[in-house]
Each structure stands twice: as C-alpha cells, then as structure tokens.
C-alpha cells in the first residue's frame, strides 16, 4: 500500500466536498455494505422547475478512493439534469479524479450505483434492494450479479477476470465464481468480436465544429463548472460560433467583482484543452433562459 493516488484524488480524500446528510433530499441511494468493505449513501436534491440537481451530498464508509469518488461525483452532478447525471459512467468519475488505481475501480462503480439508486428512489421506482441490481447472483461473497458484471465489462471494455474483480469485486473473495465470470466475459467478448468497431471517418483527426462543441461542453462541465460552483456560482454555455464561445455567468459569479478575472481563467482553460484560438464572450445572465 502506498499513496498510489493522483493529486486530485488525494485532494478529494483530504478535503471531501459535500459531506453529510441532506435533510431535504429528493432521493437517497444506499449501496455497498460494511461486510464488503465499503458503503456509500448518496443524496440528491433537484429543482422542480429546471429538473437540475441543485444539491448532492454523500456519506462513505471506505478507503481513500471510495471517499474521493463520492466527493467527486457530488461535484459532477450538481448543475446537471437528472438525465445528464445518469449518463455519468464510472470511467467519467475515474477521469475526473485523474485516474483511480486499477484495483480500486470498484469505488467508482459504487459511486455510479449510488447515484442511480438515489435517482430511482426520487422517482419512486421500486428496486429489489438498494444494494443489488437485478439479475442472478454470481459472486456470493460480495453479492455481485451477472447483470452488474456484464455492464462493467461492456462499459469499461474489460478483458480479464482480474479486471472484473477490480471493477466489481466479483471473484475477489473465495474465488469459486471465477470460472463463471470467465464464461460471462467470453460471452460478451464474443459478441463484441462479431460486431466490428465502426471505421473512423476520413479526416477524423481534424477538430470539426461538432467535435469542438463537444469538447467545449466537456471542458466547461468538468473543469470550469465545479470550480465556480465551489464559490456558489455557475456557468451556462449559450452558443459556439467558429472559435467564439458565448457563455453566461450565473449565481454569485454574475455580479462578482472578480468576474473579469474569472472570464480570463475560463478562456485560458478552453484554450488549453480545446483550441488556442478560442475567445470568450460573456452574455448577460438570463440570456440562456431567453434562448430556450
């Protein structure tokens, strides 16, 4: 054991964001169990008008990466609509933390599961149990179903039993289910082999306008928004015309004395991660609403 963690993961472990019980939560998801070594309770609160998640908090029993994954996830979901939040994969959580050690990937999977459980609770969906997805239990030590194993294999393109254990814990106890995991793995790999990956379009390396917009959205989502939200602010992407990115600053940011400073910082971020030709134009807040 050592500090095999990225600086960002360490930061989220040492200074976890949004810890605690959310008294007025719309949804609460509980996953994991102490017997299995980690447990997570995730709370979300949404704005009924916009459908966006306004608050998210967590409580974790677990190791450094389990705490950091949950902390990261709260930052990632705040400001998103529930549908957007549900599209977050465990890999997104890992990427947000600049990576999670392979053998700890199950921590990120637990984060995603807790979010899904919280949303399900909010929507009043009946789940068989908070801790388990439907399906047949394959790993009895950690209560892992075939559905969960299949999903982890597909979403993360896993190829070995060891990886499946890293991502789901399945097979990490007594080990008797490893043959069954291998069968599932072979079945999914066989399917994947039969469906060859689509050929990349010619000139795919070029930064098309479509790709640029996607990249800008991603940068704002993962790099810019979390920082602004820490200070009670937020950002709306309004439009992209060529290299001009139109955004609105909302919340505390809108009237903030340091808005000019913030604008420069956002532009630097976009230039660094998208294209060095990006120029930021700040629209008055509310413009985003007007456009809808």
């Amino acid at each position, binding site marked *: *054991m050592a*500090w095999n963690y990225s600086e960002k993961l360490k930061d989220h*472990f*040492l200074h*976890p964001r949004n*810890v*605690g019980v959310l008294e007025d939560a719309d949804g609460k998801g*509980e996953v994991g*169990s*102490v*017997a*299995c*070594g*980690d*447990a*997570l*309770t995730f709370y979300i609160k949404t704005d009924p008008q916009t459908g966006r998640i306004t608050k998210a908090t967590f*409580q*974790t*029993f*677990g*190791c*450094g990466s*389990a*705490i950091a994954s949950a902390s990261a996830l709260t930052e990632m979901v705040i400001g998103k609509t529930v549908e957007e939040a549900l599209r977050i994969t465990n890999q997104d959580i890992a990427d947000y933390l600049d990576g999670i050690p392979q053998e*700890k990937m199950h921590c990120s999977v637990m984060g995603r599961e807790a979010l899904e459980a919280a949303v399900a609770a909010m929507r009043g969906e009946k789940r*068989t*149990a908070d*801790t*388990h997805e439907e399906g047949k*239990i394959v*790993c*009895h*030590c*950690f*209560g892992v*179903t075939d559905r969960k194993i299949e999903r982890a294999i597909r979403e993360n393109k896993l190829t070995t039993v060891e990886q499946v*254990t890293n991502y789901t*814990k399945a097979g*990490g*106890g*007594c080990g008797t289910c490893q043959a069954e995991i291998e069968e599932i793995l072979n079945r999914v790999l066989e399917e994947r082999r039969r469906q060859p990956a689509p050929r990349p379009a010619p000139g795919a390396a070029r930064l098309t306008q479509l790709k640029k917009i996607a990249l800008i959205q991603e940068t704002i989502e993962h790099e810019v928004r979390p920082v602004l939200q820490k200070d009670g602010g937020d950002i709306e992407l309004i439009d992209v015309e060529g290299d001009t990115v139109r955004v609105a600053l909302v919340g505390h940011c809108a009237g903030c004395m340091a808005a000019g400073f913030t604008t420069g910082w956002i532009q630097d971020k976009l230039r660094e991660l998208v294209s060095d030709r990006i120029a930021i134009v700040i629209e008055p807040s509310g413009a985003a609403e007007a456009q809808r």
Partner: protein
Amino acid sequence: MKPIYLDNNATTAVAPEVLEAMLPFLRERYGNPSSIHAFGGDVARDVERAREQLAALLGAESPTEILFTSCGTESDNTAILSALEAYSERRQFITTRVEHPAVLSLAHHLERKGYEVVRVGVDRDGLLDLVELRAALSPRTAIVSVMWANNETGVVFPVEELARMAHEVGALFHTDAVQAVGKIPIDLRRSAIDMLSLSGHKLHAPKGIGALYIRRGTKFRPFLIGGHQERNRRGGTENVPGIVALGAAAELARRHLTEEQTAVRALRDRLENGILERIPDVIVNGHRERRLPNTSNVSFEFVEGEAILLLLDQVGICASSGSACTSGSLEPSHVLRAMGVPFTYAHGSIRFSLSRYNTAEEIDRVLAELPRIIARLREISPFSRAHPVPDCAATCPAGCRGPKE
C-alpha cells in the same frame, strides 16, 4: 521531518551498530569464506562469530544448530519441506489459520500436492484451540508448525506445550518465531522445539538475511541444493554482510531484551490506554496479557483502516492495517477473520508495533493526532452509534454471505 515509525512488525530500522559491523564486508573485506587464501578464509571466522552471537540469543546448545538463510520465508519453507521429505511416510501437516503467508501459502501448495493439511483455529482473543490441535494429531503427522507470536495481534502461542504434544505422536515441531526473537526471552537449550525460523530485518538487521535453528539430531533435508556451504545444508555463497549484521543485531537484542519487556511495553501500554481513553467505540484485538510487549492492534468502529492510515501518513505517522483495502485483496485480515472479529471492526483495524527506538514524545504525538483523524472519518461515515451498521446478512435479499475465510 523524521516519521514516527510504529510499524516495526513490518520491518525495523537497521541499528547503527549493526550497520557499522557489516560495512567492512561490503567494502574491503569482500572475500569468499570458502576460499583457501587468508583474504577469504578470514571472513569465515566472522561468519562463525555471527553464528555464535545468534546461538547465544536463542540459547542454542551449539552454534552448529544455526543455518543462515535469505529470509523468514525461506526458513519456514525449508523447515516444513525438510520434515515432509525426511518423514515421507507421514503425509499430514498441522498448522494454524493465523500463520504468516510464508506458511499458509505453502500449506495451500502442499494440499494441492496431495498432503493432508489441518489448520487449527483460534478463539475471539486469538488464542489457539488446543483441543482441536490435539484431536488433529496422529501418527500420520510429519510436522506441526505454529508461530511463536502472531504478527498482526502480537498474541503469543504456548510453543513449548505444542512441541511436547507434537512429540507425543512422533512429529517434529517447528515455530515461525520471526516476531518473537528479540522481543521475548528464548532458551532453546531447555526447550522441546525442533526447528525455529527467524528474520533479520525484524530485529534491526537489514533485509535479505534470515536463519533457521535446527536442533542437533533432527533429520534434515536441504531446500537449496548446491555447494557445501552451511555444512551441506544450504547451497549458495554466504551473504556475509547480512550474516555479520544479523550476528551484531542478535547481540544487541540480547542486551536490550529487558528493555523490550519494560520500556517498550510501557510505551505500548501508554499508547493503547491513551487511545481507549480518548476515542469511543474502540476495541483491542488479541489477548491483552499473552501478547508481545511491542504490539497493539486496535479497531475503530464505523471507519475504514486505509483511510486512517493515509491520514496518519499525512502527519508523519507510520502504522499498518488489517483492512481489505490494504491487504492487497478485497478481504480483511485472515487473522482477524479467524478470530471472529466483526467486519465492522475488522475493516477499521490498525496495528501499531513499536521498537526500542520509539519515545514517549512520539506516542504523545500520536495520541494528539489520532482522535481528530478518527472523528473526521466518522463524520464522513454513514454509520455511527445512532445509525448502527445494518446486519447485512440478515437483510440481504440476494442472500450474499459476505466474504468468508
């Protein structure tokens, strides 16, 4: 800043005197003890002197009963495999569920090769089930191997009694004394133990040197087959700097043995009692009397061990944990599970292991930092006295059992 090192059951600092003693053999005195010329041959005397120093620490009848090896694991493997080969008509091996992997992994390997292996259990205090052990003994038993002291909890086993029990059925008795040597008095002259394994780096010698004591007259089959070294009992050119270091460390340990029993024990108790006074919902793992003087294994309920270790590391304190996240597997310590420590405590276990180089100031620093660290993690945890850990096994609709040993 110098770290506060409370992980001496993992490894220890090389004592300055030990380093001094070994350095000439890394510099100018590099001769091979098997050489005919004086430059090499003289080195053989230093090797023999180290053998005498170690024999003295163990109270061995003769230095020839000491065999130098590369580590504790090699000693353990050599002893057990030797007995099984020397008594090949006996196909049973008896050990415990709380051994070090050096023995447990070998047991697993032997099982696959067709040997009958019995792993005797322990009670909630980590004490060995002697009734179970007695029942397992039979004329088929080749060797009984039980650690002298457990590395995780420090619990000390009644090796003399166990050795006599093994002899009643004509079996050999080996003890993995890696954690005991230098910490508790050992007098093999007045003992029934046939073989004993030890490791240099647990008693302030460097890594890469170990030893196996083989009582004179014990049937022995070598593990490493090669040259005539170690009286044909272990091939391979001697690790001279390591052997000299182990000799020096043994002599130091002999001089400091009383200190381990008094000063180190006092520091350990200061730490353990301080933790129990300052932090609620803590238990001590392992029998509090029948224990090494330097080890304290405590569990903090509602929190996880790796997280504790990382926060301790932040303030320069080194310890270790039996939590799943630090065991290199997904399951908590096999020792704590064998003892039946509930999962909620097993995952939050921390082992502090002291040495004579620790000070009262260091212990007080730990006592100042630790309550804050535990409180901080408990704040993040969904569990507390008000929200106890649910009984997973009772409520689990999927029927998952939780990890088993």
